[in-house]
């Protein structure tokens, strides 16, 4: 090529790799053998020609393209998604059409994919008199040559500052010698024979800032040079791939771990983040309760890779027990999910573990925030084995002990919690891999009162509570030519203890065991899926009753007079399921399925639950979907245990139907609209009158229906975010002769707007605004004086849940800043909840006889500071 104005163009090969890596995770379905997606790799790079018309103006520009790569690795279509002007666009498009990749594969079969790709145009470098490159003036780019094997003059690696990640497809240029090369996937580069001496090197990448180095070439061989370059921005928004969702899922909404970390007010909590999605009601204050389409929090299943999580939060809502950074993301199903899941009538929240990366290297961080300090470290211990360790501990108890004098606070042990996770990923062979996750959590609080409340215990009165769990989850994934399977085993031991003034004590222990076996056979027009899902829940409790509750009279009960109650119960819940994926046409998919649940041990009954989902791809931008099916949910163990509950309780059921549409007119606009209707029957409700005992009965009927809208801007460019709106109504008729009433969790309007914007110099700002209807309340109309206890008992209106709290609205803001050092990064964030200090009513505080009332708000403006040192 003649000595022409050099064009400094680099390929954004990382863009090709990154989104498909995410697609690998996003397409992977928890609870079923996940597809193995291998992204395409570049084979032939084509330099675009700098537009002649712009040369004199020395313009710079970056063109971002969306490439459709066929199953043969050839680029079928190149579409500009971020323009740099018509001239640059045309040059980039022309070059991109000539790029050649290896084909992407899904479970070994070539598939077409769509990736993002970027060309960066820069004016030619000029070589000044001193031989330093200001541009590439009259430098001719030579073909990329390698030195003969075994003879290298200069090689090394280009790594990213702060993270240590290799930089692929970066240009390494020695202007004085007129030589350049590109780094490979591992960031490695090498030059052929070089003249000995000191040379200036210029390193430049599409995602990285230019940087100059000096190297000394001695005796024709210099090795091991490492160049560290800064990213243009360390606030990384990864675009999601457009691989289709798994069959049989109508309303899955996925959020990546990176998005989770950026939403203000959730403190990076993977489970709380779903409270910002449509269909999910707002829980009180900092509670972590997940209220899906009007259902009670206990009606929604939360799993890690298909294994139920017994305790989601420390102290009921303070902070999640699982570090989000061991997760790839979460999949949330407000309804319409496949038959492989059951036993709950609300929604389903699946947390997916992070998958091992091919280019894994050791990394980690140490962090501290308002609540706790912790660390995470992850890396390979061999070519096939990677480990991740994480632990966190709260420190408010240590701070209080150090700062507050003895005797001032009633605590002897202030609230404290800790949690840990240890994960091992093992690639056994090309068709089998395994994961073992061990995790645990503990909460504790102990207070000594100077005098006991009237009628209670000893003078040295104590209130204490501890709760926690330890568990292990093992996964084995297998695949064959036309099938794949997955085995999941989870065992979790949970314990809880409450001691009130040595007069009342509860000790509860349970061992929850989950065993799943899932299979998928076939592909193309017909796919068969089946599996086994077993859940066993032994429950052991010992209760010491307060003396006031001891038997005060002669009774037929043989244990009359006893204060010590012991309860044991075991729920055994095996299930089998089967569905078939019919791809009737390229644009129509129908998935009928059926699930059989048995409830044994302490539970009773069985249910056969048909479901069907369908998707119709009307066009590239528009997909229609529908689902209908029946779900069931067994009563909780404590509802059926002999002394406290009703052993005759049966599972309650719901029939849910939903219709929806997904519209993606643009890469940066996704619109998802769904309408749903749910009918519930045999709901578990308290008995009609107080003297019928306190065991619940299957007498309730309910209806929930509504509209959900999600308008989303995926993480592309400088911004990501969404607007979620739900319009909903939920009612229940507890007993046939009672009036229909609103559900306790009914919130008619739920509007949430979330956004995050990337600023220069590694700053990022995020915001969340919520506007929600107030929760229903039942007005207190009178009070009756209970003379035995010298207390008042409120009498509530006959119209239950007919009033509402005032609407809730709140703004949360978050600012992040990253400081980049050579081998590590420091991240600092400030998260402010309730920026304008709105006193949202969360409850009503009455005076002693209910003649006066005032709204009670919970948390005011809360600033929270956090730091993280990451390597």
């Amino acid at each position, binding site marked *: 090529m003649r000595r022409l104005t050099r064009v400094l163009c680099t390929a954004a090969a990382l863009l090709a790799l990154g989104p498909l890596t995410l697609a690998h995770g996003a397409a992977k379905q928890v609870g079923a053998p996940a597809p193995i997606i291998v992204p395409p790799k570049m084979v032939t790079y084509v330099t675009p020609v700098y537009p002649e018309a712009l040369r004199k103006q020395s313009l710079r520009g970056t063109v971002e393209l969306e490439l459709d790569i066929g199953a043969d690795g050839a680029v079928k279509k190149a579409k500009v998604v971020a323009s740099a002007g018509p001239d640059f666009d045309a040059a980039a498009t022309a070059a991109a059409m000539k790029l050649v990749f290896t084909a992407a594969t899904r479970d070994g079969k070539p598939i077409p994919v769509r990736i993002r790709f970027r060309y960066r145009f820069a004016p030619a470098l000029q070589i000044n008199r001193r031989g330093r490159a200001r541009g590439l003036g009259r430098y001719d780019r030579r073909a990329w040559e390698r030195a003969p094997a075994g003879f290298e003059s200069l090689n090394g690696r280009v790594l990213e500052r702060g993270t240590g990640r290799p930089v692929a497809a970066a240009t390494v240029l020695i202007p004085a010698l007129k030589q350049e090369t590109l780094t490979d996937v591992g960031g490695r580069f090498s030059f052929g024979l070089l003249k000995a001496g000191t040379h200036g090197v210029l390193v430049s990448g599409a995602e990285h800032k230019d940087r100059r180095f000096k190297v000394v070439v001695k005796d024709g061989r210099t090795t091991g040079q490492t160049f560290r370059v800064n990213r243009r921005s360390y606030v990384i928004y990864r675009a999601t791939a457009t691989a289709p969702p798994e069959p049989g899922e109508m309303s899955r909404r996925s959020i990546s771990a990176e998005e989770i970390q950026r939403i203000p007010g959730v403190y990076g909590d993977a489970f709380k983040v779903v409270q910002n999605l449509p269909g999910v009601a707002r829980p009180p204050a900092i509670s972590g309760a997940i209220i899906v389409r009007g259902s009670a929090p206990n009606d929604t299943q939360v799993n890690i890779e298909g294994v139920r999580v017994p305790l989601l939060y420390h102290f009921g809502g303070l902070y999640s027990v699982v570090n989000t950074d061991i997760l790839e993301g979460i999949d949330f199903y407000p309804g319409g999910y496949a038959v492989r899941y059951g036993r709950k009538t609300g929604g389903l929240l699946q947390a997916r573990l992070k998958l091992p990366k091919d280019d894994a290297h050791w990394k980690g961080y140490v962090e501290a925030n308002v609540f706790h300090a912790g660390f995470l470290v992850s890396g390979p211990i061999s070519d096939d084995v990677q480990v991740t360790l994480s632990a966190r501990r709260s420190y408010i108890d240590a701070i209080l002990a150090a700062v507050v004098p003895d005797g001032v606070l009633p605590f002897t042990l202030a609230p404290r919690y800790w949690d840990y996770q240890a994960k091992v990923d093992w690639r056994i062979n090309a068709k089998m891999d395994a994961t073992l996750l061990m995790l645990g959590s503990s909460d504790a609080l102990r207070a000594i009162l100077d005098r006991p409340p009237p009628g209670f215990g000893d*003078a040295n009165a104590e209130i204490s509570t501890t709760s926690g769990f330890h568990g292990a989850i093992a996964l084995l994934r297998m695949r064959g030519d036309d099938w794949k399977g997955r085995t999941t085993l989870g065992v979790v031991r949970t314990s809880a203890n409450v001691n009130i003034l040595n007069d009342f004590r509860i000790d509860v222990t349970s061992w929850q065991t989950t065993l799943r076996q899932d299979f998928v056979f076939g592909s193309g027009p017909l796919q068969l899926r089946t599996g086994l899902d077993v859940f066993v829940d032994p429950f052991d409790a010992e209760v010491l009753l307060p003396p006031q509750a001891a038997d*005060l009279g*002669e009774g037929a009960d043989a244990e009359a007079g006893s204060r010590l109650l012991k309860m044991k119960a075991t729920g055994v819940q095996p299930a089998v399921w089967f569905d078939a994926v019919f791809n009737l046409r390229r644009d129509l998919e129908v998935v009928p399925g059926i699930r059989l649940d048995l409830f044994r041990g302490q539970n009773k009954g069985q249910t056969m639950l048909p479901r069907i989902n369908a998707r119709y791809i009307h066009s590239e931008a528009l997909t229609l979907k529908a689902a209908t099916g029946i779900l069931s949910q067994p009563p909780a163990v404590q509802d059926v245990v002999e002394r406290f509950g009703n052993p005759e309780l049966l599972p309650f059921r719901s029939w849910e139907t939903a219709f929806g549409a997904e519209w993606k007119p643009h890469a940066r606009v996704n619109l998802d609209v769904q309408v749903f209707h749910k009918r519930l029957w045999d709901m578990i409700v308290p008995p009609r009158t107080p003297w019928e005992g306190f065991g619940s009965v299957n007498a309730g009927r309910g209806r929930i229906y509504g509209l959900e809208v999600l308008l989303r801007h995926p993480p592309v460019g400088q911004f990501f975010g969404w607007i979620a709106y739900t319009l909903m109504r939920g009612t229940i008729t507890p007993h046939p002769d009672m009036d229909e009433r609103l559900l306790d969790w009914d919130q008619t309007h739920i509007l949430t707007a979330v956004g995050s914007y990337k600023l220069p110099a590694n700053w990022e700002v995020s915001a969340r605004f919520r506007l929600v209807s107030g929760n229903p309340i039942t007005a207190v109309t009178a009070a009756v004086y209970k003379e035995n206890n010298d207390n008042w008992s409120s009498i509530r209106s006959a119209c239950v849940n007919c009033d509402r709290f005032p609407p809730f609205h709140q703004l949360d803001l978050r600012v992040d800043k990253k400081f980049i050092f050579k081998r590590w990064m420091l991240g600092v964030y400030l998260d402010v909840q309730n920026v304008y200090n709105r006193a949202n009513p969360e409850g009503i505080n009455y005076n002693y*006889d209910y003649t006066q009332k005032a709204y009670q708000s919970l948390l005011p403006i809360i600033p929270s500071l956090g730091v993280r040192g990451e390597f």
Partner: protein
Amino acid sequence: MKTRTFLAARCCVVVLGCLTALGCLSTLGCDDANYDPPTLIKTMRVLAVRADPPYIGLAPTRVSAFVVGQTPGETLCYAWALCPFAWEEDGNYACLDPSLQVDLGNAPTANASLLALLTVLEKLPAVLAAKGLQPPKDVAVDGATDKPSDVAVDAGFEVRLLFQISEARIWGGTCPNDTTKMLAKPCPTRDGCMFGDKGLRVVVPNDKGAPSKDVHANPRLELLTLNGVPWPADVTPTVAVYKAPPADDLTQLNTTQGLEVRPVWSPGSIELISKSTEAGVPDTTERLIFSFFSDAGTFQYRRTGFQVPDNGYQAERPAKKAATQLVTLWVVVRDGRGGSDWTTRQLLVDPTTPAGRHPLCGDDPSLPKCDEVGP
């Protein structure tokens, strides 16, 4: 009624809900309320209802109310009734059915009879059936007989004594005499009217004629002490206005401030309920609880227990810049099984009284000297 397991279930739900979920954190919440304490009496209030004996047995039980704070010159109206089951429904708290309610009249005192109750219980199966309700699990009622004596009643059975006590002004000056109507709903207005219930055990001798362990007596408040010295009912001590310690004086936190009032009960007031059958679990006895009230000033605790019965009282400056103020204190004791007793005292708040001098000081050798500075 399975009170034991019911209370246990409620305890489990409340305790677990409070300590392991968000409920506890909500106590950190803020509100705009600034209510008068429940110990302060400003309007008519029923502080206690006494039953002699404190159960329904073969002998008639006489009930009366301890009412304070009524508007001077106002006539009080009464309504009494006995009912097997009272519950909250349709925004009211009333007897399950009017046919099950035993009218006890409109006088300041009433007499409750087991015989009258038995006739009502005979109607219970039919009433429950008509309403489509299940009978209580611990009550076996033989509907096949019309002999009250054949009705078997579990000794743990508790009935409700419903009462409404009000000032005549809320009825236009004339007390109504329709008990059923007065007790069908809670008070028409909360100012000058109180509606309540009191649980009383039904006690029937067992097959051997021996009395049930529910046979017990009312506790008795023998006296009060003021700052450790017995306080006779006919003595009105003079006290100083309470002055709070400096805010930064942390050593004075959690200590009794101002005056200390301590109730003293007679021996035998704490009765044995049942002996324990398990090692390490103590016998079950009554637990006395004391409620404190006053028409001025502040008590440190609304209630105290038998383990630490003393309470702190802080006298406030007389209202409207009066020279002195006469304050009435009331103390009520309950034994948790329907038994109760009460006592009244008065003291004179005089801002000029030197602080530190014992309010009951005097020349008698048994009293503190007035020139000694006390606690």
